[in-house]
């Protein structure tokens, strides 16, 4: 961690002092424990506030969408976030030349605050300590030690794609472990496990999860791939939704959003971490990514790749078609 920090400092400092960029996107410490805030590093003294750790939970690429073209911006990213930037570059939303990517190898993954909250019974912790992979949370009337793998974001638990694939500067640091699990596990293990359940169980699971949804749109707003000027749920001509917060509407919203993200979602899981109710909505997107792999062998997104739904092969599988007798 120290090594990353040092290397980051040097890179950012040189970018700022040599005026290679207008500013660098990073994180600073939040006002509550285990929370971070996006930081615009414009001056050298801002660098001291910069942090880089396992609770930098947002995907900063989202913020790039707000910036006008032609402005040179530096941004510190992990590999999953770099892939989301690649999707946006592929979809002509961002110019590659505008962005200076500072890639950081990701060893830990990101902690999901919602998971912590659930594990300590919705109580509040005022401080936390870490000792290797053990995190100890302390509140007014409790102290609880939790293993890192229990509070890591789901996608980080299974992630194997930790080295930046595209960067202008690379922070050189050893990756401490490949996945948090010791044995070599499948990247899509959680999806595979879920698929093994009975259909009714799966349906009940989603029904229960979506019941909690408040349609606050934190998932949409934290997702860099949701950049439509008018989202289908907000459109009023035609108005697809009565917006009465029926469960059927929530279901429709999340299903349609999943379809829009099919094969595009790069599993940064910023959506699930942003969800105030801690709904594991990311599972849907991960499934569709797995599907892209199974059906079209297109689950790794590289610069210049066409989007999954914006391309086709003549011999794509079509076993689901109804055939005449």
């Amino acid at each position: 961690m120290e090594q990353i920090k040092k290397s980051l400092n040097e890179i950012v400092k040189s970018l700022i002092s040599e005026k290679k960029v207008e500013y660098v996107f990073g994180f600073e410490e939040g006002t509550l424990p285990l929370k971070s805030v996006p930081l615009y590093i414009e001056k050298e003294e801002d660098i001291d506030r910069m942090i880089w750790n396992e609770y930098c939970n947002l995907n900063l690429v989202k913020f790039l969408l707000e910036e006008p073209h032609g402005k040179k911006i530096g941004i510190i990213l992990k590999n999953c976030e770099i892939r989301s930037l690649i999707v946006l570059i592929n979809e002509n939303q961002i110019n590659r030349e505008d962005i200076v990517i500072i890639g950081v190898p990701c060893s830990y993954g990101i902690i999901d605050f919602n998971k912590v909250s659930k594990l300590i019974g919705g109580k509040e912790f005022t401080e936390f300590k870490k000792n290797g992979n053990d995190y100890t949370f302390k509140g007014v009337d409790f102290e609880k030690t939790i293993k890192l793998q229990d509070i890591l974001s789901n996608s980080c638990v299974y992630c194997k794609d930790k080295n930046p694939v595209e960067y202008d500067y690379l922070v050189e640091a050893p990756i401490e472990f490949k996945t948090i699990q010791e044995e070599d596990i499948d990247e899509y293990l959680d999806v595979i496990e879920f698929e093994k359940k009975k259909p009714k169980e799966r349906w009940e699971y989603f029904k229960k999860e979506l019941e909690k949804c408040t349609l606050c749109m934190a998932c949409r707003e934290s997702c860099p791939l949701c950049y439509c000027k008018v989202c289908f749920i907000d459109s009023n001509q035609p108005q697809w939704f009565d917006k009465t917060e029926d469960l059927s509407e929530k279901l429709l919203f999340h299903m349609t959003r999943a379809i829009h993200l099919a094969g595009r979602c790069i599993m940064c899981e910023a959506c699930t971490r942003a969800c105030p109710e801690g709904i594991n909505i990311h599972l849907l997107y991960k499934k569709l990514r797995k599907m892209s792999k199974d059906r079209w062998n297109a689950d790794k997104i590289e610069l210049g790749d066409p989007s999954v739904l914006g391309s086709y092969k003549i011999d794509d599988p079509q076993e689901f078609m109804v055939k005449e007798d």
Partner: protein
Amino acid sequence: MVKKKEKQDNQTFEKIIPKDKLDSLIKGLNKDFKLIVPKETEDDIEFDYLDSDKEEYQFPEYQNLRVSPKKFLFPRKEVLYSFEKEGTNIKIKEKEELIEDQVIFGIRSCDARSYKILDTFFSSGKYSDPYYFSKRNKTLLIGLACNEPMTACFCTSVGGAPFSSEGLDAILYDLGDKYIFKIISEKGSAFSKYVSEYPDVKKADLKKKEEWAKSARDKIKFDINLDNIEKDLDGLFESDIWSKVSRRCISCGACSYVCPTCHCFDVQEQSDKNGGKRVRIWDNCQASIFTLEASGHNPRNSGRERTRQRIYHKFNYYLKNYKILGCVGCGRCIKVCPTNRDIRETLKAVVEAAEKA
């Protein structure tokens, strides 16, 4: 006026309730009132209805709950009326609500004050809100003074206090080994019969209570003077602090959904061939469609304007229109925000900017 009453009641109804008797008090109340109590769920504590005949209930330990009990008086989704189509004719059926007397038990001071703000707002102007008051008029609040404020709490800065009894009908003070039960309002005297058997409070207990109150107050680390906030904001409408604040906002509505005082709503219609209903649902001012007009014009088009609107609504317009602050300092918006946009930091920035100007 309120103070006077408080004094009278002071002498009559301030009882000591041993810790282990609280559950039986709740059970007693549940015989006559519909009770809303904090309940332990799988991984959280939430306010919910209690049916003590059917379920075992134990009053849980909590600081404050993640979700405020706003929804019991101002539900997330509420039917305004329904209608039926009979040929070309329309028949409107008003929603019939049979509301029993209900008690929200264990509500914290900040949340109780939020009802006071909602009361003021929903009764303001020419029309008072019939749906809110049909429930509000039947609701009593028994508070639980706050011994352990949380990290994001700042009620003392917006005129509240952990031990405040403002807006409550009765309050419990937790003294560690026992509770003081105190009746605050006239309506709250209905509770006297449930606690009459318990011993009267002693001087020493009251002294102990003051100590607890002080220690709770001291635990709130954040302090800011908002006496001039209305004037301060008047001069900062075009200030660049709003672009700085909104820069970190992703325009989701999580803050307004957890806010105990946010009351903006949207009206929508649900229908099929034979009829339908009109409902109102919570809405949030951070979404761009909140003010989008059918013509395509949007008066509050950017995050800067919407962020500013939220702060002005609570800290300027409220003072202008109703002479109260629209915030109770519960800190929920700070905790829920995906980008940790801290309203305390914003207020600090406002006060500082005003000093400079």
